[in-house]
Each structure stands twice: as structure tokens, then as C-alpha cells.
């Protein structure tokens, strides 16, 4: 549908700039790896578990090579060597390693070809599992397609079992998508916690076991409700690709996975983030997991009217990075948000303009639309009204992934009743405005169309500038969310390693190859 009549050429020029921006970074990405990328390789080779100090084995393995200054070769070849030593038994190799019986650095390295041969049976198992998951997901989605605009709510009790109670109630009430929010602080951990967890702050730790428990609960609800209930977690922070790998194995459906969020909102080093995001997205592409980008966050620190174009510019950049990672448009859940101060005159018109614009510029993307948060106060009734307006904007502009606003947004992570009321609000609005979008037109030169044109033009200009300065510089200058980050600052830079000439990543190679075939 074309309601805004935006200029196709401007959009094309934005895409060209964004591609150039991402390509530049991609040159850098190609030359580097990170501790997280290599740990991910371990995980996809089937290595899991923790040692007696609760340190994950992937961290133990990668850290040893890193300390030895050899991570530029990639972990793959070391694992292959270890496996060879232990007759291709991963279990024996790992137990010898943790027992200190073997040091990776002492291993005799193999050729890439031999290493790959040895590793093949390991990664084949994991990749087969991931493909199986993809198949199951597709089957369930075909069987239980559900509504077009999916209703998304979060659980965040800190205790995975409590989360399950809340998630099941939400699904029973009509939620299509459940996200388990992470505990504060997890994104800055340079490892992924292990096992079931029942303590977290503002969210629940993302662990593979927690993923498994929630997936099982939601599968149960899928059958009960006859709607495929999707599961979401976060592949952001210092462990982007590792979480993507765990999610692929446990059949998560959506991951928050932005190319720049960690830089801007978690002060994670930009080099680190760009390298990590590439591999995490490659895995998502392989596993059929929808990514969600985080442009909505910009509007929590920057003004939603003034900085609207930065959201659009960032969407183009996220799209360009996603394409490099071979993600099809159908998996690009670009983010935006309803964050204009409702006291501003005509704010609703601006919101609709922005949402419709995103819808029309990215017609195949499962757009993620975030609710008002910044201008929500403790007046829960007012919040419920703001959420009604937001729900109406969503339906009027046919968004895909509809995050529900909570009336207690300004107070606490959602209670069961908050979620119930949010779902009721959204369901009612969806029905009452079902054909609205088909029924109305925006006037030529009206506020809505003019606003969309204005934002698009500003985004074009910004992309053009960023193209010239380079994205690293743009981030240093605080182009997004009004936040400035130094090239060498932030967390996790020490985990970035320049690839050696003989660097070898058995998983990336395989995934890239397979995805390029498609």
C-alpha cells in the first residue's frame, strides 16, 4: 500500500548510502574476530557447561588461546587438534582440558582442511538441530498462523519459573510473542551464565537452560491456544553471537539484535560490537530467527520529534548490515517507537506519519513497534490512554510486531494484570479499527505526508554525511540518541583480535557458504 507517495529515488539514495556505510565497516569486520565470536564457535561445536568455578567451558578454551596471543588463528583449529588427540571424542577432550591434562597452546595445529574434516561431525549435529528447529517453527506457524499484527509482551520477574507462570497467563490472554527480559548487568558480562536461574534484577538471566524451560512452556501454550507463541531474548551486549547460537539451538524465534545498540546504550566498544553483530546475525539468518533492532531506544534519550530522522537513518543502516549477514527482509524486525510527548499538538499525526513511513519504506520487514515509555508517568490511567492511542497507530499503519505498552511502565516490570489489561486494550483496538487503514487517505500536503517527506529527506542528508565521515566517526560525534562514544573506549575492546592470515572459523565458513547457496 502506498499512502504517503514517498519519493522512490530518495529512498534508493538512502539505501545506497547505507550500503556504502555498512560496506566500509564490513572491511573492518572481516579482518577481526572477538572472544565472543570464538566462544560461539565452541558452542556450535557442541561445547557447553561450566567448570568448578562456574566459568563456562567456551570461555576457558578461548581465554587460554587469547592469553597466549593466538586467538588470531581462531579457536576452530585448536578444537580440531584437541579432538584429534582424543579420538574425536569431544567429551574426553573437554574433560581432559578442564582437568588441566591438556593445554590448547601445546597442541599441534592442523591444516584448515583437516581441521574442518574433524570438526564436521560436531557442527553437523548442531546445525542439523538448528535446521530441525527451523522446520518445526515453520510447521507450527503454518498450522497456527494467528493474527497479522502479533501482540508482544514481556516477562521480567527475575525467576524463570515465575516467568513461566506469567508467560502462560499472557499467552492464554492473547499474547503471540513473549520476551524474557534480561537482568540488569547481564549485557556487560563477557560470558553467558549457566543453568536455571531464579534471581535477577529487572529481568531474568538469559541462559540456555532458561531458554529451554520457557520454550517448553510456550510450546504447551501453542497447543492450548492454537496460536504459535513466539519466544524472544536478547542477542545484545558482550555475547551477541553466543546468545544467537543458544537461541538457534533452543528454537527461539526473535532476538533483539541491533548493530549499534550495545555501543550507544551499553557503552560497549564499537569495534567489538560491529564484529560480534555480524556473526550473531549470520547465525540468525541461518536459524530463521527474526532480529529486532533498537532504534526505539534513541527516542528515550533524544527527542522524538527532533531526532525522528535518526531512527530512519539507523533503520537503513541496520538493514544494510543485515543484508551483509544474509538475512532476508522477512527476518528484519526493524525497530521504532511511539515516543512523542503526547502534550505536543498534533503528536498523533506525527506518530502516524513516522509509523506509516517505516511501513512503506520497509514493506517486507516485520517491523517492531514500541510503545510509549518515556512520557509515561505513575498515572496508570493516563498511561492506559496513551497505550490506546499507540495501539490505534499500530493498527492504522499495519505494524508487524506490536510491543504492548504497560500502564505501570513508570513503576515496575509488569504484573500479571498489567499484561492482561494491555492485551485487552490491543485486541479491542485491533478489532474496532480492522479495516481503518484501507479506508482512509492522507491528504496531499497534509501534516502527515509532509512530515514523512521531511523526515525522509533529513534521513537522506544524515546518511549522506555518515557515508562521508564513516560510521565510526558518526558514533564518535553522537549522531544517534545524542550519545557520543570513542572509537577506543567502552567495554570489551580487549576482546577484539586481529585475524591472522591463517584465521579459520569453521562455522562462519559453513554458514556463509550455505546461505549464499540459497
Amino acid at each position, binding site marked *: 500500500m502506498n499512502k504517503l507517495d514517498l519519493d522512490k529515488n530518495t529512498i534508493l539514495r538512502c539505501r545506497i548510502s547505507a550500503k556504502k556505510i555498512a560496506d566500509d565497516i564490513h572491511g573492518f569486520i572481516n579482518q577481526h574476530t572477538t572472544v565472543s565470536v570464538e566462544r560461539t564457535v565452541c558452542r556450535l561445536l557442541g561445547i557447553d557447561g561450566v567448570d568448578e568455578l562456574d566459568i563456562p567451558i567456551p570461555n576457558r578454551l578461548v581465554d587460554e588461546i587469547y592469553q597466549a596471543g593466538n586467538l588470531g588463528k581462531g579457536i576452530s583449529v585448536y578444537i580440531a587438534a584437541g579432538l584429534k588427540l582424543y579420538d574425536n571424542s569431544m567429551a574426553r577432550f573437554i574433560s581432559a582440558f578442564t582437568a588441566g591434562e591438556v593445554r590448547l597452546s601445546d597442541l599441534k595445529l592442523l591444516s584448515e582442511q583437516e581441521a574442518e574434516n574433524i570438526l564436521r561431525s560436531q557442527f553437523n549435529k548442531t546445525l542439523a538441530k538448528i535446521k530441525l528447529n527451523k522446520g518445526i517453527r515453520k510447521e507450527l506457524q503454518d498450522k497456527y498462523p494467528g493474527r497479522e499484527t502479533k501482540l508482544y509482551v514481556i516477562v*521480567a*520477574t527475575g*525467576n524463570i519459573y*515465575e516467568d513461566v*507462570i*506469567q508467560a502462560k497467563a499472557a499467552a492464554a490472554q492473547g499474547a503471540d510473542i513473549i520476551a524474557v527480559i534480561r537482568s540488569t548487568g547481564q549485557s556487560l558480562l563477557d560470558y553467558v551464565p549457566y543453568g536455571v536461574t531464579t534471581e535477577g534484577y529487572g529481568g531474568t538471566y538469559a541462559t540456555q537452560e532458561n531458554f529451554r524451560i520457557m520454550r517448553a512452556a510456550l510450546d504447551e501454550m501453542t497447543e492450548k491456544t492454537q496460536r504459535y507463541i513466539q519466544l524472544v531474548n536478547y542477542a545484545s551486549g558482550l555475547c551477541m553471537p553466543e546468545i544467537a547460537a543458544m537461541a538457534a539451538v533452543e528454537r527461539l524465534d526473535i532476538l533483539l539484535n541491533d548493530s549499534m545498540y550495545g555501543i550507544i546504550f551499553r557503552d560497549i566498544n564499537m569495534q567489538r560490537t560491529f564484529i560480534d553483530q555480524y556473526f550473531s546475525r549470520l547465525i540468525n539468518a541461518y536459524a530463521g530467527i527474526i532480529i529486532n533492532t533498537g532504534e526505539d531506544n534513541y527516542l528515550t534519550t533524544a527527542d522524538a520529534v527532533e531526532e525522528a530522522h535518526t531512527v530512519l537513518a539507523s533503520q537503513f543502516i541496520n538493514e544494510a548490515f543485515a543484508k551483509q549477514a544474509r538475512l532476508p527482509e522477512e527476518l528484519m524486525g526493524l525497530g521504532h517507537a511511539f515516543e512523542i510527548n503526547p502534550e505536543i499538538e498534533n503528536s498523533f499525526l506525527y506518530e502516524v506519519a513516522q509509523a506509516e513511513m517505516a511501513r512503506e519504506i520497509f514493506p517486507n520487514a516485520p517491523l517492531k513497534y514500541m510503545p510509549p515509555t518515556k512520557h509515561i*508517568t*505513575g*498515572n*496508570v*490511567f493516563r498511561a492506559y490512554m496513551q497505550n490506546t492511542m499507540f495501539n490505534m497507530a499500530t493498527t492504522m499503519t499495519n505494524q508487524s510486531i506490536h510491543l504492548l505498552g504497560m500502564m*505501570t511502565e*513508570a*513503576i*515496575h*516490570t*509488569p*504484573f*500479571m*494484570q498489567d499484561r492482561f489489561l494491555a492485551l485487552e486494550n490491543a485486541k479491542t483496538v485491533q478489532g474496532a479499527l480492522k479495516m481503518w487503514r484501507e479506508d482512509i487517505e492522507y491528504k496531499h500536503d497534509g501534516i502527515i505526508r509532509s512530515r514523512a517527506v521531511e523526515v525522509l529527506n533529513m534521513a537522506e542528508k544524515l546518511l549522506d554525511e555518515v557515508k562521508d565521515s564513516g560510521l565510526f566517526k558518526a558514533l564518535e560525534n553522537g549522531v544517534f540518541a545524542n550519545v557520543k562514544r570513542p572509537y577506543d573506549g567502552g567495554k570489551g575492546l580487549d576482546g577484539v583480535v586481529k585475524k591472522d592470515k591463517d584465521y579459520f572459523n569453521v562455522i562462519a565458513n559453513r554458514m556463509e557458504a550455505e546461505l549464499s547457496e540459497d
Partner: protein
Amino acid sequence: MKIRPYGDTMSDGKVQVSFTLPCLADESGIEAAKILARKMGMNDPNVVHVEAIGEGFSFFVVYGSVIHEVETDSIKVEKVETPTMSREEIEAIIEAEFDRDIIFIGASTGTDAHTVGIDAIMNMKGFAGHYGLERYKHIKAYNLGSQVSNEEFVRQAKILKADVLLVSQTVTQKDVHLKNMVNLVELLEAENIRDKVLLIAGGARITHELAKELGYDAGFGPKKYAEDVASFAILELIHRKKRVQ
């Protein structure tokens, strides 16, 4: 079993409360709201919103955990114990047990002008897909409309020889319904016909418990339809008939 409110952790006791106080929306006002919340049993109340709402009043929203528990094992509720039958079952049972039609009269009594509720129960077309009493075979249903005085209602009950009296009450402000409902019982007693009829009340704020308390035989609130009241009435009439024999 002891239960407490549930926010996001079993038995966390979380409740949401809002109210208006005749005070300013300042620190002292907030403290007053907290004191009130504590008196209501909320631990550590969180005044999440305060706003002046004009001329010396302030509006508060409070969240917190109540210390109270409810023991559910000992809960006993007055509820209509007879099962709800279908229209066809009710018609069949009247046919089997009585050799005459059963007479219902209904009205929205006193100064109450709300008829939608009593119409929902009585009118042919019924409500929300449930046919009304007028459509039942072997039931004669007289709907007297609204703002019918209790005197007039009793007079009609006698003239029409009603078996069942249906009283609808919607306006409850200043407990006007209670006064009106009690007055009807008194009139029926004065006329010596209270025990000759079934007296049934209904309305959005009417519960069975309340109706019993006021001397009615039953009370029906929201989401009750003709078949609920007819089932109760017919089974109760049969029961009474048998008791007399």
C-alpha cells in the same frame, strides 16, 4: 489455602489503589496518602502518582504489598444452589409438575427507570442470545415496565395472581434500592402474601447474598438470564409444593 494478591511473585501481596484526598499535592499530602495506605495494610506503599485536581483536592495512585491473607478453605458463599436448565427442560418440567401456567410479573420499581435489565429477562427477544420469559411455554410473563410504585406492583400481583415477582433495581446511589426493596417486602407482608409468592430481585449491583439478607428468595446480577431465574423459580415452586403436600 491461604492466598494473597499476586503481582509477579507468588504471594507478593501487590495491589493498586487510587483515591482522592482533601489535601495538597505536596510532601505532606504524599505522606497522608502513605499513612492511609499503611492503614489499609500496605507495606512500604509507593505513591507513584500525585496530582492536584482542583480546589484543595489531590489524586493519588499507590502501589504496594498488603500484609493480609485470605483463607479460602473457609469461604462459604450464599449462592443460588439450583442448577440452570435449558428453556426446553424448564418447559418440560412445568408440563410434568403443574397443570397450569406459571405467572411471573416483573418491573423496575420505585423511581428506577432502567428497563433494559428486566427486559433482558422477560422480553420475547431476550438478551445476548438468551430468550426471555415471554417466549417460554407454560409461563405467562407480565412486564409492567419501569417506575412502578411498590403499591401498584403489589396490586397487580394480586390481580394477576402472580406466582413469581421479579423486581429490577439499577440505581443504588445513597442505597435508594435497599429502602425500596425493603419497603416492598413490608407491603407484601402487610397484605399477607409474602409467603404465597416467590420474590426475586435483580440488577447490576444485586447479589444473591444481598437479596437474601433483604428477605427475598433470590437475587441475580450481571450475566444472569431468563433460564437462570426460571430454573430457580420453577424448582423452588415444585419444592414448596411438595413441602406443603
